[in-house]
């Protein structure tokens, strides 16, 4: 099932008891970020928050933590909110394999209601605020940023929808961080080689399928819109921009049309990042905004990012794990069971696999490091047997405790690529990586005493079912 827009998803969250309306008066700083950070501490099943009484504003509304829990992630996919994480993973993998789903084009969208082309002031249009104390300003960090390949502009799949951190740097100016690994950096490079500005559209307050697709590591020529359709199981609805050929999510609350300025870099940051550290103090490109549209009384959806876990980790947990799982399955279709790459966007990944023979699990670990996502992540890959649930950390710790022999099973590979934001990389972007093989040794690798694994008493499954009934 599909949510037609952001508001319909909020309504669903409210019906399911997963939206907390906060009518208390809050200050823009530090209250909204503080409340959101505090919410993340309350467990893995927390609600979204909607603030509607913000000091100094007359009718502003700010939505936070919208996908910041496993129930909200399940509802994103239209599943019951209590769906176990491992089931969400396999359902997501199933829908991911249905890519591409063709899009549905529309002429008009709700965000056309209000249009501004003169005297644009982003500070008046959006209730902007600071997230973390060291941040250099007010950021936009959950918006879809859309751009096209200038050398192949008709290629729908090469149009990119991504989520990038953007610092509001003036009434109609944004700074953006397109690190070289990001698709938009390819588009910017093309534009700068030509000496032309790059048209961009920024869509804020979207239903969650496109946010999920935009945050999924897809291949360069794969369309996020066609992936959003696959995730929601219905064609994704888009509408054309007015100043360019870019396509915009139909259900957006606020849309900014503008251009990335060729040849311009300006001081940006710092900004508290998903690594739990600040990054910044570098010179980054600038977007000039030429046109704004929004729904009447728009809701500003924002993302608190900080020391993990926060909403970011729920947002990019399953959709990072699934592509890695699919790419490993392409190499080893009969062995790979599941992948958990939820830790700091997959800097640590856990792979559950069957093995063909001794040494196989280490090959799986190396393959994970050489997938497209693994090139920038997978600093540590833990490989476990097929009967260990990689989403169940006590089980993973048991495997490490009993199956891993440091002399044989800890493999360090020197000086591989990693994302430059990894604070441990030295120089930035280079790090050793490690495989921990926590699988049971298999012939011809015969070592240890693993011939008598514990079984369970008979009828445990029957009793588990009965106990659940009794405890209801």
């Amino acid at each position, binding site marked *: 099932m599909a949510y037609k827009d952001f508001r319909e998803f909020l309504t669903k969250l409210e019906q399911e008891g997963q939206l907390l309306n906060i009518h208390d008066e809050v200050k823009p700083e530090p209250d909204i970020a503080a409340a959101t950070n505090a919410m993340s501490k309350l467990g893995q099943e927390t609600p979204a928050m909607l603030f509607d009484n913000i000091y100094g504003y*007359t009718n502003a509304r700010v939505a936070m933590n919208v996908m910041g829990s496993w129930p909200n992630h399940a509802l994103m996919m239209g599943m019951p909110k209590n769906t176990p994480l491992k089931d969400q993973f396999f359902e997501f993998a199933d829908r991911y394999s249905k890519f591409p789903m063709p899009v549905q084009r529309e002429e008009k969208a709700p965000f056309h209601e209000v249009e501004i082309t003169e005297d644009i002031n982003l500070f008046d249009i959006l209730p902007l605020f600071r997230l973390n104390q060291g941040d250099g*300003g007010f950021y936009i960090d959950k918006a879809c940023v859309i751009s096209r390949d200038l050398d192949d502009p008709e290629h729908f799949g090469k149009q990119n929808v991504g989520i990038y951190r953007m610092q509001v740097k003036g009434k109609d100016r944004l700074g953006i961080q397109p690190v070289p690994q990001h698709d938009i950096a390819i588009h910017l490079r093309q534009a700068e080689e030509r000496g032309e500005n790059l048209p961009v559209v920024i869509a804020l307050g979207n239903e969650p399928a496109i946010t999920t697709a935009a945050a999924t590591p897809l291949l360069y020529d794969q369309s996020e819109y066609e992936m959003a359709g696959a995730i929601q199981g219905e064609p994704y609805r888009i509408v054309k921009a007015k100043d360019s050929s870019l396509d915009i999510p139909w259900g957006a609350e606020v849309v900014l049309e503008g251009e990335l300025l060729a040849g311009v870099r300006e001081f940006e940051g710092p900004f508290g990042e998903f690594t739990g550290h600040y990054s910044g*103090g570098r010179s980054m490109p600038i977007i000039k905004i030429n046109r704004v549209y929004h729904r009447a009384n728009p809701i500003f959806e924002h993302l608190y990012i900080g020391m993990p876990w926060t909403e970011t980790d729920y947002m990019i947990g399953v959709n990072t794990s699934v592509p890695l799982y699919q790419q490993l399955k392409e190499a080893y279709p009969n062995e790979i069971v599941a992948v958990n790459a939820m830790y700091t966007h997959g800097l640590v990944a856990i792979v559950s696999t069957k093995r063909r023979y001794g040494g196989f699990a280490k090959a799986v670990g190396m393959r994970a490091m050489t997938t497209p996502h693994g090139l920038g992540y997978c600093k540590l890959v833990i490989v476990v047997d097929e009967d260990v649930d990689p989403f169940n950390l006590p089980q993973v710790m048991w495997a490490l405790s009993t199956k891993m022999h440091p002399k044989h099973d800890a493999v360090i590979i020197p000086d591989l690529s990693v994302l430059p934001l990894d604070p441990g990389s030295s120089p930035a972007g280079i790090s050793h990586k490690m495989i921990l093989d926590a699988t049971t040794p298999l012939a011809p690798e015969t070592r240890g005493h693993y011939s008598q694994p514990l079984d369970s008493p008979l009828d445990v499954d029957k009793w588990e079912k009965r106990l659940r009934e009794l405890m209801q």
Partner: protein
Amino acid sequence: MMHTCPRCESKADLMAKSPVEGAWEVYMCPVCIFTWRSIEPESITKPEKYNRAFKVDPADIPLAENVPPLPAKYVNK
């Protein structure tokens, strides 16, 4: 009234006023682009109380690394 950037201590500009009159103002520094709201805690708004680890020397700003790098034709201009 002049407003001093808490981070690099340059002179800053008024960016926005609260829709409710008199509640707050937002300032931005044209040199280091630091942005703040008048009612934030003094550890954000006051130059002498701003976290020293996050201070910026205007002389360092032109030396900041370009991310992504600029193509040669822009650098040689």
